[in-house]
């Protein structure tokens, strides 16, 4: 920003007047830093006297004004469906006293909330807010913003204040800031050269102030982390005392994970769906209905936070998503959350064992903003319900507004049941089947159990289709080897049936399907009738056959079928889907048959809440299963330890 022409001066008295006239305007929500106990927090201002611009750090960052701790996203009425909660009545926030590191954090959040798909609630609040920053006067003990280059900032604010004793220097950073100053303040003067120099000097002093610093250059962080992923002892030692309390992430200005919950009224006829802050350090963050927890130890969760901030987000966005505010560190009771301590330990360890670490290359990132997310589901009616096994039922659905789902094979939808919740399901029918679409649902938790009680004619909410599906185009002309384990047949069927409907576009089509026992076979008649088709090679197997059941085909795990098929690895693409444990073994067997890495396609499962890559639950390294997956090319994820 061209400092000279934008710098102004306001006496302290006139500044108070400015704030008080903002407060007097009832159409604005004026908030600023106030004292709270022995600490500080952003809160509603009743008068300029309450402002404490000399503060060191606030308990919570100002992100709570754009992304509140709790907020209603959608309301519903069983009779009429879901509606987005309007933000029309929200007053614009005038946020007074934001430190540079928190401004930088807001800029990080802007990218995170708007990439690929934009979050409408965040955007609405953000766009109507005004940020009045203030240069740091007192630095907290745990602050390492200087090391992260965030102790001062030259952009991202509407106005930036610097305390010059009896007056404030105000740098105007935007038209919004200029307008605000014009409308609500008096006696604003242009800054003199000496004032501008004073500001420069103050900023330099701050940048030189260090409370905590790295013993190495911070640009080594992403690569250094990469080298330490496998070092379990390091992570276990450092996380021994972790209480899984989530304090470190809940106070963090760049954390954005959230959970979504339904809250019905007592009448059960209406209700709302809301979101609330969540944290990856909490024990059940990565736990799914089946009970599987993808990060079930303190060490893996503890490691994940550092990786997410220091590597995954760097790989995805090109910045280390930490601004050095030090809140995580000061809020950790066992004192294990200080990134400076951790990275210094890591660096010292790397010297000890002689690992070479290079500065990371900033990835060439093209983040595009796309559609605005619609959190309100559309209503669909159950037109057919066919129980297939003791626990799995097939539901055929039709959208009430008459539109096609318009999905690609491999994509998923989020299904809502009024008041109970929402859960993701892979679409099981091919898009070539018009008017309706099919889901195969296993009864497991609250949402699925409730769905199982619904009858034909009942209604559910649908969001989607979401995710990266199978690239049917890419597979044209190839031989296809489908490997389905258990419930894995469900998403594979969407592609399989698509291929059958376009049979002449594809080469050999082989389906290998394995279940635990014969009575768990899904799509029974449909699947077994494949044996009669000449244009499909179908083999099935069960892990075991109990005495009272009849099974004349192969008995053994799914991998026992692979050697029974003769295929050309160069011409063949393997499409694999099944329980987490299955992938390792199937891929090993495929590799032993020389199938190239990029000929293997998998569909993964994770805990998914928002379905649009915002809430953070399904994240594997820098990838979101709901956005970059669930279908992945193996070559893309084979290097990612969390994936398989």
């Amino acid at each position, binding site marked *: 920003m061209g400092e000279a022409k934008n710098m102004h001066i306001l006496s302290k008295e006139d500044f108070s007047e400015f704030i008080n006239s903002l407060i007097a305007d009832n159409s604005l929500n004026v908030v600023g830093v106030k004292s709270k106990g022995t600490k500080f927090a952003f809160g509603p201002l009743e008068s300029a006297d309450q402002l404490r611009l000399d503060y060191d750090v606030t308990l919570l960052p100002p992100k709570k004004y754009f992304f509140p701790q709790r907020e209603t996203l959608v309301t519903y009425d069983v009779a009429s469906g879901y509606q987005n909660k309007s933000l029309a009545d929200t007053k614009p926030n005038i946020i007074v006293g934001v430190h540079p590191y928190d401004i930088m954090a807001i800029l990080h959040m802007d990218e995170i909330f708007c990439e690929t798909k934009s979050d409408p609630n965040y955007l609405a609040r953000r766009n109507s807010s005004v940020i009045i920053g203030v240069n740091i006067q007192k630095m907290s003990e745990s602050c390492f913003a200087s090391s992260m280059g965030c102790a001062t900032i030259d952009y991202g604010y509407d106005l930036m204040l610097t305390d010059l004793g009896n007056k404030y220097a105000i740098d105007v950073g935007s038209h919004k800031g200029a307008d605000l100053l014009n409308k609500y303040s008096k006696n604003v003067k242009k800054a003199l050269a000496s004032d501008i120099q004073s500001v420069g000097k103050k900023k330099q002093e701050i940048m030189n102030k260090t409370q905590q610093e790295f013993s190495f250059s911070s640009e080594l962080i992403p690569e250094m982390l990469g080298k330490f992923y496998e070092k379990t002892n390091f992570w276990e030692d450092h996380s021994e005392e972790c209480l899984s309390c989530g304090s470190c992430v809940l106070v963090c200005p760049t954390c954005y994970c959230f959970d979504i919950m339904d809250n019905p009224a*007592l009448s059960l006829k209406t209700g709302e769906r809301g979101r609330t802050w969540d944290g990856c350090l909490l024990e059940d963050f990565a736990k799914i209905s089946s009970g599987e927890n993808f990060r079930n130890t303190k060490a893996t969760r503890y490691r994940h936070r550092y990786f997410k901030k220091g590597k995954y987000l760097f790989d995805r966005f090109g910045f280390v998503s930490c601004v050095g505010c030090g809140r995580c560190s000061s809020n950790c009771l*066992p004192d294990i959350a200080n990134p400076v301590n951790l990275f210094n330990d890591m660096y010292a360890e790397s010297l000890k064992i002689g690992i070479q670490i290079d500065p990371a290359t900033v990835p060439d990132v093209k983040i595009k903003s796309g559609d605005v997310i619609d959190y309100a589901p559309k209503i669909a009616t159950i037109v057919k319900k066919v129980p297939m096994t003791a626990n799995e039922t097939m539901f055929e659905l039709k959208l009430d507004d008459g539109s096609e789902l318009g999905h690609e094979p491999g994509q998923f939808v989020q299904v809502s049941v009024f008041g109970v919740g929402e859960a993701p399901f892979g679409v099981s029918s091919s898009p070539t089947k018009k008017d309706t679409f099919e889901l195969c649902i296993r009864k497991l938790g609250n949402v699925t159990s409730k769905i199982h009680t619904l009858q034909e004619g009942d209604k559910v909410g649908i969001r989607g289709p979401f995710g990266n599906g199978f690239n049917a185009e890419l597979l044209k002309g190839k031989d296809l080897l489908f490997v389905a384990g258990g419930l894995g047949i469900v998403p594979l069927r969407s592609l399989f049936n698509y291929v059958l409907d376009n049979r002449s576009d594809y080469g050999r089509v082989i389906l290998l399907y394995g279940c635990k026992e014969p009575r768990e076979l899904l799509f029974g008649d449909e699947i077994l009738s494949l044996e009669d088709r000449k244009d499909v090679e179908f083999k099935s197997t069960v892990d075991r056959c109990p005495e009272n059941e009849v099974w004349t085909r192969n008995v053994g795990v799914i991998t026992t079928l692979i050697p029974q098929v003769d295929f050309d690895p160069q011409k063949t693409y393997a499409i694999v889907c099944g329980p987490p444990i299955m992938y390792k073994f199937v891929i090993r067997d495929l590799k032993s048959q020389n199938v190239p890495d990029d000929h293997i396609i998998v569909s993964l499962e994770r805990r998914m809440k928002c379905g649009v890559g915002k809430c953070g639950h399904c994240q594997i390294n820098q990838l979101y299963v709901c956005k970059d997956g669930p279908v992945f090319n193996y070559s893309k994820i084979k290097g990612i330890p969390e994936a398989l």
Partner: protein
Amino acid sequence: MKPKVAFFDFAGCEGDQLQIANLEEEILDLLGQVEVVSFREVMKEHSDDYDIAFIEGSCTRLQDEERLKQIRKNASIVVAIGSCATIGGINSLKNYQNLDDVKKTVYGDKANLFDTYPARPIDAVIPVDAYVHGCPMTKDEFLHVVKSLLLGKKPEIPNYPVCVECKKNENVCAFERGEFCVGPVTRAGCNSCCVNEGTKCWGCRGMVDNPNENSQKEVLVKYGLSVDDAIGKFKLYFGWQGKKK
């Protein structure tokens, strides 16, 4: 068809049942969704034909077990309400003392008229389907459980510590104020109400599924409590849970 509900109380202070009376006008909405067939504190009538049983208070005598087992037989769903019923509550504090001595000194030669054994939560005697934790429980959480049961869903309760809610509510941490808090191992769901009122968490909702007890004790000692007193903090509400581990 409205489900039939019944309320029972054992060794407790009746504070949780009072929260139901504290629903005020919402009681009428509640009565629109359930049929109360037994609630000794407010009504004369009683029926053994009920679907959902709400039980307050701990089991502190052998003779109470029979009553509990009968309730379990009659009900399809049993809900424990309040800390005494869900985790043993403050009653479990006495489990650390020698009960025979206590009885004898109190009642002298009449001691054997009074039957008591270590206080325990309801699920130590009968299987329990849902829990409304807290001392007292909050009416919001009670309604949350009721609504979940009406929807045929297993109520979701947090498995993370009170710190989560405390931070969301932007409290100044108790430890920073010279207080000794057990929030880091206590199950959330109360919205950190006690810290919000200017104090600290005492642990009335019981511990999360996998608390890091050692770390919590070390934190207490680090901030100035003696080891004995730190262990003592765990006896207030975690008496039964702690001994089980």
